[in-house]
């Protein structure tokens, strides 16, 4: 029983990990607190549904196409709005993305309603595997597997390549990085697009298992923020590990004190920040 709950926790953890990774990338490299991350997650799921509904495109293709589409939306948002806010306090980015979230969610709600759309897992993954202690639906296993791959690939690029170094440096002093000859505006645009595409990717993963509705992201976003903070704002590895870890802890809470499973994240956050002011993996200034 406990083991199966932990395994389920890991599934949720991989959603948290990939969502908080996107947030961490955007915050760490652009200094934008991307409140619309939840909305992008939702867009990922809705675009997946649309692909199937209107164009008959299957799940596997959408796994690529949805993040691309949403990434494009992100790029447009960055070009139109965020670009003009980098030199300001990050409150403004937060405010803007908050406004965008209201706007996007409102529009989609007026088109598709609030109660949601249905989507089924692809045939290939629809069965379940008996692990002895529990029956794990194949789809959930796929979620964990694909999330982990995407997470670690992203981590590698950002922490271990010169591309990542440009991005990190650009966060601190974009003008200087340009003065060195790096086309930083283009990089920030692409980074935002990428961060948002990560959210959309987890949206695609979520589409077959949770209710696709315009408001699906807004419940999640606060928790994901908490994950990023616990991990240490902007720390890539921190957000991945914390996401997974919190999934596990949440899984345990669901066994022992289920009502509190949404609140436990905040309890942990308070405790962590009291002892580690910059989060578990954050660098103290």
């Amino acid at each position, binding site marked *: *029983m406990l083991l*199966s*709950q932990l395994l*389920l*926790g890991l*599934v*949720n953890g991989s959603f948290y990990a990939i969502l908080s990774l996107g947030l961490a990338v955007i915050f760490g490299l652009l200094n934008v607190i991307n409140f619309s991350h939840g909305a992008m997650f939702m867009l990922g799921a809705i675009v997946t549904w649309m692909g199937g509904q209107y164009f008959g495109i299957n799940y596997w293709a959408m796994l690529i196409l949805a993040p691309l589409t949403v990434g494009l939306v992100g790029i447009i948002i960055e070009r139109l709005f965020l670009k003009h806010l980098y030199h300001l306090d990050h409150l403004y980015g937060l405010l803007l993305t908050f406004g965008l979230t209201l706007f996007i969610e*409102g529009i989609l*709600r*007026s088109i598709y*309603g*609030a*109660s*949601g*759309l*249905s*989507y*089924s*897992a692809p045939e290939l993954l629809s069965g*379940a595997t008996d692990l002895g202690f*529990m*029956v794990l*639906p194949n*789809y*959930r296993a796929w979620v964990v597997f694909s999330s982990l791959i995407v997470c670690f690939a992203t981590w590698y690029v950002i922490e271990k390549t010169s591309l990542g170094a440009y991005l990190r440096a650009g966060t601190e002093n974009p003008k200087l990085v340009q003065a060195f000859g790096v086309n930083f505006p283009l990089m920030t645009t692409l980074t935002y697009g990428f961060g948002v595409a990560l959210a959309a990717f987890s949206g695609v993963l979520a589409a077959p*298992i*949770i*209710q*696709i*509705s315009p*408001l*699906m992201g807004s*419940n*999640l976003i606060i928790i994901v923020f908490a994950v990023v903070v616990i991990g240490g704002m902007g720390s890539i590895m921190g957000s991945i590990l914390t996401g997974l870890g919190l999934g596990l802890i949440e*899984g345990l809470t*669901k*066994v022992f004190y*289920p*009502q*509190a*499973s*949404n*609140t436990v994240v905040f309890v942990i956050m308070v405790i962590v920040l009291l002892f580690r002011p910059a989060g578990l993996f954050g660098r103290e200034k």
Partner: protein
Amino acid sequence: ADQPPLKIGFITDMSGLYADIDGQGGLEAMKMAVADFGGSVLGRKIEIISADHQNKAEIAASKAREWIDQDGVSVIFGGTNSGTALATSKVAAEKKRIYINNGAGTSALTNEQCTPYTIHYTYDTIALANGSANGMLDKGYKNWYFLTADYAFGYALEKDASNVVIAGGGKVLGNVKHPLNASDFSSYLLQAQSSKAQVLGLANAGGDTINSVKAANEFGITKTMKLAGLLVFISDVHAIGPKNAQGLLATTAWYWDQNDQSRKFAARFFEKMRRMPGMVQAGDYSSTMTYLNAVKAAGTDDSDKVMAQLRKTKINDMFTKNGYIRKDGTMVHDMYLYEVKAPADVKSPWDYYKLVSTLPGEKAFTIPPDSKCALLNK
């Protein structure tokens, strides 16, 4: 002479979680009723003003107050969300104006917090719990386990249903509480499964219900347990999709495919909204019609007189047969337990339900001895 228009205020969730249950569709249904009625009453043009309370009680209440004080509305219709409904009901009572609610679940509206001016029209949690629990017991499902949303509303649903289960000789094997708007239900469901109960009562609503049904299918729980939704709207079934929803049991006050009258109404509604009406929207239509008829019969829009008229009229329309409004404000009418069809049996979109049993209104709603409403027992 130029008579002032008769104003009807309608406040509900137009943009949030519950907007599909009532919202824009509810407004449309009311407009249809006004049009069907002829557009005017007692020589006064009928006007509907509407607002979105965004699920905030203070917006609902202050809108209601403002409408009464400033716009002179004759009646207020209210939609989903219990908190907003209770707050509006208080305002209406204070200002002696009729308040008709069609979307809120809480039975407190006609029970401990009842007022002489509040009518609870479509359903309440007691009726839903009664409908589901009785229906399941009749079919021999005695052992229950509850998946309960962790807030007052979830508790109320669970408590009402388990009372019926126990009274009917069944057993409640346990429950698991989940936080509101949880996104993942798999681990609660595993706990439910290990209880070995026959029925899983879903004491939750909206997205929570949808997500729990989806996960129950994914984990194969539906193979060993019957899922009984205690508050399921047809829009929820639509969102789950028949593939996942099949076998789910749900109580409702009205289903579009229940008779010719309802089908006709539904077809007209579909024309306008591109989706089938749910019970709340049907209730909006019916209650508007009922109110207007009462105004016409009373010859005035004076609240007390109209209320008296409403209380003494039987309601017979596409929504219900022989319904009536009790002293505590409950509109007593039959409730139906439906089961979601297998995908193969679904002939057209929105064709989801097959009837399991009918529960007469007298048995469905709070019986007078149990009520804490002073109006009912004096």
